[in-house]
Each structure stands twice: as structure tokens, then as C-alpha cells.
């Protein structure tokens, strides 16, 4: 498969595919635990400022992606407050690196992930969680042994949705980390770049086909996994 792809795709195209996969994977994996916690907090707790948190989470979904990208640049760029902090204390720079592309993709995909997981949590009967607590399980154990297994299909759906969104992220990425081949040029950015030069259409078309295959594959996989998990969780 790999050999076929490297033979079929040009080196620049192949680079973009690999980079996209890496960016989307990291964006999904790192934001997943945070997404589960956020969804749980939004679904099960009442506290002052809940609507503000909810708004913040959803902001990237509503804002123009360029705005989100620019805000990330202001915050996380070399001169940005968070960027300086990360650079000085941890030696991490995300601006104009593939890690920055992953941050942009993660932020843009986060609302979709949280929505899917939150719906799953709200579908869990709180009476089951009550039953677990009367049997001696603390809140953390109730979450780990009852809530988490029951929302697994929702988590998988949320993760795959986020992965697909991260693969396709364009506006925030190009604004935040620019379009550097081999560093921040993910698939959509590469397609865009190929379309800007004469004779680049063939390369763009090949990447479009790869994008369609990845999207369809992710969708089918999520259906398959979610169905298997749902059967297990469904109590039959």
C-alpha cells in the first residue's frame, strides 16, 4: 500500500498526506481526554459560568476559521503571551511548525467532538450512576466503570468526526502556521497550492482522491466500531 502510494503520488504529495495524517492523529488523541472531561462537565454539572464555557467550546464552530487562526497566532505565536511562556519554560514552539498545525486542527475539531460525546453522556440514565454510587463507587469510579463504557460509541463517533475535521482543516491552519511544504502543508493546503501553479491540477486531483478515500474509510470504520461497541454495551 505504502509503496503503491509513494509510486503513484509525487514526493510532495506523499509528504502532504503523511503530514495530514500525523497532524490529525495528534490533534484527535491529545484533545480526546479533554473533550471527554469537558463533555462530562457540560452534561452533568451545573455551575456559574457554564454558559460561558459552553460558548468558548463552540466558538471555533461559529467564528470564521481565519479569525480562530489569527487568535491562535496572537496567543501562541512567538510574541504571544502563551507562546512566550511555552518557549521559555518548556522550549516548545508551535508557530510555523507541524505541532502548530495540530493545535489549529484540534481547536477547530474540538466542538464537534464535545457535542458528540455530550449527547452520548446525556443518553446515559443517571439512575444507573446513582445505583453504582449506592454500591460504594466514588464519583471517579462511577465515571470509569459505568459512564465511560456506556458512552464508548459516542466517544468513538466524536473522535472520528474530529479526525475527519482535522484532516480537512484549512483556514485556521493557513492563518496560524502558514503553508510551508514538509512542515505545515497538510493535504488541503497542498491541494490549494497545486491549484495555484500551472500544471498542478493532476497532483491536486490525486490528493482529492486520497482525501475521499480517507473520509469514506473513517466513516465506515466508525460505523463498524460503533455498532460492535453498541451491541456489547446494549446488554445483549
Amino acid at each position: 500500500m505504502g509503496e503503491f502510494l509513494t509510486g503513484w503520488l509525487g514526493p510532495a504529495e506523499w509528504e502532504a498526506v503523511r503530514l495530514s495524517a500525523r497532524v490529525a492523529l495528534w490533534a484527535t488523541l491529545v484533545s480526546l481526554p479533554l473533550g471527554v472531561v469537558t463533555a462530562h462537565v457540560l452534561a452533568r454539572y451545573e455551575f456559574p459560568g457554564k454558559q460561558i464555557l459552553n460558548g468558548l467550546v463552540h466558538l471555533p464552530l461559529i467564528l470564521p476559521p481565519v479569525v480562530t487562526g489569527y487568535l491562535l497566532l496572537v496567543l501562541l505565536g512567538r510574541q504571544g503571551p502563551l507562546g512566550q511562556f511555552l518557549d521559555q519554560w518548556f522550549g516548545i514552539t508551535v508557530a510555523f511548525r507541524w505541532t502548530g498545525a495540530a493545535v489549529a486542527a484540534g481547536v477547530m475539531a474540538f466542538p464537534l467532538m464535545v457535542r458528540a460525546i455530550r449527547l452520548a453522556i446525556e443518553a446515559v440514565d443517571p439512575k444507573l450512576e446513582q445505583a453504582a454510587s449506592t454500591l460504594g463507587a466514588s464519583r471517579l469510579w462511577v465515571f470509569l466503570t459505568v459512564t465511560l463504557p456506556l458512552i464508548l460509541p459516542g466517544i468513538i463517533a466524536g473522535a472520528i468526526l474530529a479526525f475527519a475535521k482535522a484532516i480537512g482543516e484549512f483556514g485556521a491552519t493557513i492563518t496560524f502556521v502558514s503553508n510551508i511544504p514538509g512542515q505545515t502543508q497538510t493535504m488541503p493546503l497542498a491541494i490549494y497550492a497545486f491549484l495555484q501553479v500551472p500544471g498542478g491540477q493532476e497532483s491536486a486531483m490525486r490528493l482529492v482522491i486520497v482525501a475521499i478515500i480517507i473520509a469514506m474509510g473513517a466513516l465506515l470504520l466508525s460505523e463498524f466500531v460503533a455498532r460492535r461497541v453498541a451491541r456489547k454495551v446494549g446488554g445483549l
Partner: protein
Amino acid sequence: MSLALQVRHQLGAFALDVDVTAPPGVTVLFGPSGSGKTTLVNAVAGLLRPDQGRIAAGDWVLFDTAARRWLPPHKRRLGYIFQEARLFPHMSVRQNLLYGRWFAPRAARGESLERVVDLLGIGHLLTRRPGALSGGEKQRVAIGRALLAGPRLILADEPLAALDEDRKAEILPYFERLRDEVSVPILYVSHSSAEVARLATTVIALREGRVAAMGPPAQVLADASVVGVRELASVLRARVDAHHADGLSELATAAGVLHLPRVAEPVGARIRVRIMGHEVILSREAPVGLSALNILRGTIAEIQPGKGPAARVVLAVGEERLTARVTRRAVQALGLEPGQTCHAILKSVAVAPEDVGKGRWSERAE
């Protein structure tokens, strides 16, 4: 282990104000819906934090506003059996049963899995998932799960209410076994006087958030202000003396010999029999040529006319009290008065199987 319930709680327009101490055994919270039974049991479970009060099982204090003590539910060491079984759908029956055991202190693991599985007859279900169980099976597993958590107190909130009559008849005996074979106090919520008669050591009758009456079932079920005139009943202690070939069982009671349709318990077993007040016929003379098999001779202890056409007549028969519900006109026509000798007539077939339950009497408050 006695159960102290002092709870004051305001819930919108509803106020719960209870202050009772129940003796060991099965305490049934009895009353119509909206009387505060579930609120009270949830306060014991810690699912609801009352405004004020103290809840303790023996010296195990779960809640005390004066001492600023409030244990969260998972530290209360309870076994809560809910109306709907609430089994965890993603776990097998065995995993459900052992769930509470993960969290119970090692020393507190009272019953073994083998014994509980045996007690409830659920051995063949262990590898199944809850989705594949019938309603009765689910509730049996829920009882086992509560039991295996090593509880200091078992709570049951109308555990039979969601089941049909056949399933009720299937589950009720398991609660009797729990009462008789497991030494954990039980707080049981019910609005069914049949369940009270069969299970209760003590009845706490609730009405609109307050205690309307409290005592042994024979006393509370004979109180029309608590159960309503239609449900007036006597609860007699009996011993099975013989099963006859014609389908009747001979029972010895302190009121005399009763012949009832074949009971499920073996000869020698101690049981309780609930006799509905409206099934009892009174006669001044010893009746002759009557098809009814059970004729008990007693003395009228009390006559209480009701608001409607009926009156409640309590007969002292031997050491027992038998409550009859007859019309006020009949009381007048027969000239019934306290102190008179009177005969109570009871058709054998008037006692349904649900009225007969196993009963250990030693714990009954006399």
C-alpha cells in the same frame, strides 16, 4: 440493629417531617404515592440531603446535622434495590453481582457469591447480560447485587411495583428468605398491604410526609385510618399442621384451626396469613349447615362505625385479633356490642396465595 430516622426536609410545597426509631428486622415504609416514602429512603441512601435531622443504623451514623456529619452515598455501605432493577447493561450478571464487592472493605464481605446465587436461584444466569433477562430475573440479580456489596442496611424502594402478579409472587419469597436468613436490617418501601402483611416486622405508615401510625403489621393493617376501609385486614400467625388430600392445608393459629387452600410451605413451617376484613362474616349464634369451613368463636373487643355504610368490628379470638368489615345496619340488626360472644366465619377460598407468607415470629414486636 435499630434504625433511627429523624428527617425534616422541604421540597417545594411538600414537607417531610419524620422522627421514628424502628426495631431490628424488616421496616416497611407504607403509604400512598406522594406520602414521602421514596424521599425518606433516598435520604437514607444519601441521594438526597435533608435540611435537618439524623439518620443512623445502630451506631453507624449516616447523617447528623447537629454533628455536621453527612456521608456521601458511596461511603454508606448500603444495598439499594430499586423499583427498576438498574442493572449495568454493559456487564454480565456475574460482573453486576460482584460490582459492590470491589468497593466493600475486605472484612465486610458478608455473603459469598455461591450462597447468594444459591439463595436467589440465579446460577444459570451468571454469564448472561441483563438485556437477555426477564423482569423477575433482573430483580433477583438486583437483590443479589445489593446483598453482595456487604451492606449494613438494605434499602428496597417498591421492588415489586414494576412486575406483574406472577413475577411478584416469584420475587416476594426471596425477600422473605432475606429477612429470615440474612441478618441485615431492611428498609422496604411499599404501598401494598399484601407485602406489608407478608414481610414487615414493623410498619411505618406515612401520610403527607408525616408518620400516621407505626407498629407491627397486625396492628397497623387493622387501622382503617391508615389502610383505608377497603384494605382492612388481620394478620394471623400460623403453623402448618397438615396438608390434606382434598387440597386444603390445616393451620394452627392462636385463634383456632383454619383450613385454607393448599399453602406452599411444608408441614411445621411458621407462616403469616392475611385475612381481609370484608371476607369475614359475623354471626351471634354458632352457625350450622354452612358451607364455610372456618368458624372462630371470639369476643367483640371494639366496634367502630365508619363514615359510610360500613363498620369495623374487632374480635378477640384466643390471643389474636380478627378484624371484620360489616355494614352498620348489620351491627344494629344483630345488636352487636363490645364484650359479646360472636362467631367469625371465613370461607377458605377467600384467602389467596398472596395472602400467605413465610413468617418468623421471634422478631415481631408484641
